[in-house]
């Protein structure tokens, strides 16, 4: 009964949003067929989608197996929290969540933006039309309320990999980021037909920050989850789906920098619009890659090919519409002369690097797709490609990141600039020697990158120090920038440590046997059988000793889920600021005394997560600033 109501609400969303869509199409032919208040449409479709989503959640909670998605992705044994999160642990539900977030952003915009009623109406017309496209995708290709008769008495299982708190919160965050770019797209495209008044930058700004923050957190959470749940000992694998999430993140980061200049100097307005449109297109591309299963990826799920085609059409039409509007824009812009050594110049440089990276990663990610269509050859692009491209680009990028904040707006002189930061350069020299002294046994590449990471952190701190030295308060904007840049520095240190400096040992370990890794002694105490709510676990018990003293007991698991007959690995991690000790347990040998164990020491990994936290905090501070300066 509830599920029928859910479907009814979904259909209502389709019908009502179609009004906005129809008007968007008609307005091109200049025929005023009907006058529509798109704000009302936005409110209605948000509440309808929300009701529909609640009905689906309710069906999951009461285990209504007459619904296909519930029967396939949930069962009565499943802990309540995973019934709740299981709603988005499958294709249909997750696209419904996508729609919910999209309508939610429209709803927020209609309530909280400083825009004029007319401009709001224009933006929401586009936003509602996007919702229409998504809701029709749901109803025609992936209806979560589809029923089957006769229905099973017991359901299947939520993919055990997804039964984890880290993953439970990862998709909503990622979607809030991905889909947040839809409102940025709508605002930019609406601004194009509105003649791009300067106020549109002020309207756009908070939405850029909020979406970027969520995307950053989403990627961070996903990476963290992959790190401890998959038991592979890494956090980033250059998998197509991971790359797909990185692409909009990079262009959004470029947008983040550009919009500051656009707001202050009223230049780069065109460029801001291009980046906004591009970012949303890349978000959609990401969705296409994940949902169509065209690329070999660990994230690929069993799929229905018609969905891929539909998303591709969606992607093409939304891109086409954005580009069409851009070409037919009616705006007069000031041409700006920019010198390289100035704040504007440095931010342009940042954008060039960000976009080069985006382009490179895009080529690497979709090249296999083209190769399979054009040459019928099956290939994949491995991590070495991305690493070899990324590393050389990092040097000028970091240099720009360090110099950038010290340059003046308008025009600056390189000699004067260097003179201004001479103390800093001296400090860099000392830091580099110190890092080299502490790590002289390790590969030179790791020394370089860790030193560069420290440089960024130090130069950001020095920026703050300059203000404090003059007994001034650090301006909020600068404080946000410092926080985010420190985050990047930490991220570089963490990534270098856990990739180049990683130590790995894999072996058969007998019960009672002790192994040495870094300065830890890892003693294998045995394996216990544990029963969880819906799984049986073989839990290895390891005693971690440092200089003969026990500091921790680690318990990696191998879980067997009853319902789906699937196995998952739960790694056990001992984190410290110097690195993580990471243990995963494999199979038992025939003689029942030896187990395969895989032990890693991943230096500085914790700094990756702290770095992401700093990035998100920096973003949040900027967001709060952009709100208070309306």
């Amino acid at each position, binding site marked *: 009964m509830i599920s029928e109501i859910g479907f009814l609400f979904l259909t209502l969303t389709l019908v009502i949003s179609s009004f906005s869509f129809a008007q968007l199409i008609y307005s091109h032919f200049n025929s005023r067929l009907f006058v529509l208040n798109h704000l009302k449409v936005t409110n209605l479709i948000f509440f309808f989608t929300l009701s529909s989503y609640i009905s689906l959640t309710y069906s999951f909670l009461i285990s209504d197996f007459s619904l296909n998605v519930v029967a396939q992705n949930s069962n009565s044994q499943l802990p309540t929290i995973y019934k709740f999160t299981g709603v988005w642990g499958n294709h249909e539900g997750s696209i419904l969540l996508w729609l919910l977030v999209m309508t939610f952003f429209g709803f927020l915009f209609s309530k909280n933006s400083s825009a004029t009623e007319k401009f709001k109406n224009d933006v929401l017309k586009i936003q509602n039309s996007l919702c229409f496209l998504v809701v029709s995708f749901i109803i025609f290709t992936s209806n979560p309320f589809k029923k089957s008769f006769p229905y099973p008495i017991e359901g299947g299982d939520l993919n055990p990999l997804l039964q984890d708190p880290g993953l439970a919160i990862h998709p909503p965050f990622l979607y809030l980021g991905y889909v947040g770019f839809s409102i940025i797209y709508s605002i930019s495209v609406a601004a194009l037909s509105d003649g791009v008044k300067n106020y549109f930058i002020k309207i756009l700004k908070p939405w850029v920050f909020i979406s970027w923050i969520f995307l950053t957190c989403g990627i961070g959470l996903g990476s963290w989850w992959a790190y401890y749940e998959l038991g592979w000992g890494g956090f980033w694998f250059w998998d197509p789906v991971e790359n797909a999430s990185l692409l909009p993140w990079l262009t959004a980061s470029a947008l983040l920098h550009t919009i500051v200049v656009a707001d202050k100097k009223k230049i780069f307005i065109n460029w801001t619009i291009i980046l906004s449109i591009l970012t949303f297109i890349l978000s959609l591309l990401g969705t296409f890659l994940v949902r169509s299963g065209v690329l070999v990826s660990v994230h690929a799920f069993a799929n229905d090919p018609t969905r891929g085609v539909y998303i591709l059409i969606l992607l093409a039409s939304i891109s086409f519409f954005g580009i069409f509007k851009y070409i037919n824009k009616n705006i007069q812009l000031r041409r700006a002369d920019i010198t390289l050594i100035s704040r504007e110049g440095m931010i342009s440089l940042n954008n060039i690097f960000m976009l080069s990276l985006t382009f490179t990663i895009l080529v690497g990610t979709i090249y296999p797709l083209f190769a399979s269509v054009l040459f019928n050859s099956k*290939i994949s692009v*491995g991590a070495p490609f991305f690493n070899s491209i990324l590393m050389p680009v990092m040097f000028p990028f970091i240099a720009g990141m360090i110099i950038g904040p010290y340059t003046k707006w308008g025009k600056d002189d390189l000699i004067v600039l260097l003179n201004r930061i001479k103390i800093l350069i001296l400090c860099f020299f000392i830091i580099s020697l110190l890092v080299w002294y502490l790590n002289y046994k390790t590969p030179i590449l790791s020394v370089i990158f860790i030193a560069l990471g420290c440089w960024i952190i130090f130069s950001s701190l020095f920026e703050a120090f300059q203000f404090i030295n003059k007994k001034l308060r650090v301006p909020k904007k600068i404080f946000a920038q410092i926080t985010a840049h420190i985050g990047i520095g930490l991220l570089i240190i963490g990534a270098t440590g856990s990739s180049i400096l990683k130590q790995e040992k894999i*072996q058969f370990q007998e019960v009672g046997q002790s192994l040495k890794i870094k300065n830890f002694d890892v003693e294998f105490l045995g394996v216990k059988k544990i029963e969880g709510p819906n799984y049986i676990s073989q839990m290895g018990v390891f005693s971690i000793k440092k200089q003969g003293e026990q500091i921790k007991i680690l318990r990696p698991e191998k879980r067997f889920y009853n319902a*789906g007959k699937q196995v998952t*690995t739960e790694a056990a991690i001992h984190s410290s600021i110097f690195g993580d000790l990471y243990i995963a347990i494999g199979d038992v040998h025939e003689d029942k005394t030896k187990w*395969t164990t895989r032990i890693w020491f991943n230096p500085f990994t914790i700094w990756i997560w702290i770095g992401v936290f700093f990035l998100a905090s920096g973003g949040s501070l900027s967001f709060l600033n952009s709100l208070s300066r309306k």
Partner: protein
Amino acid sequence: MKKKNKRLITILIFMTFFAFGSVILLFNLRENLIFFYSPTEVFEKQIETTQMIRVGGMVKNESLAKKIKTIEGRQLEEISFVITDFENELVISYIGILPDLFKEGQGVVVEGFLKNVGKFEAKTVLAKHDENYMPPEIKDIKSIKDNKI
């Protein structure tokens, strides 16, 4: 006129950089491509033993075997299994922990080096997230399609 020239030069410089960048990119890409082969193609084609490739097919039933190997004083478990496209077979050896969803009778993709005829040393066994997921590359192998798994 002067302003126009300046603009032209800027555009030319950008184009040169872009072209130069793209060439580097494509060369780099070509060196780092990992090709995918079916077991039959592995036998038909000359594949360098230094080149990393991917091979995919179905894991043959009851072919999974484990033996102990000692490397650098540590005991290791060497896993071996046979993958097949129902025409040819390839023996895969792998040291490590198999992905959770690895099963006999199911599709698998491995990445590594061809050692000698019919033997493959896997560095990675590619995991998947979903039991029912079948990599499109395996699905497209003709002999597997014909056998309708």
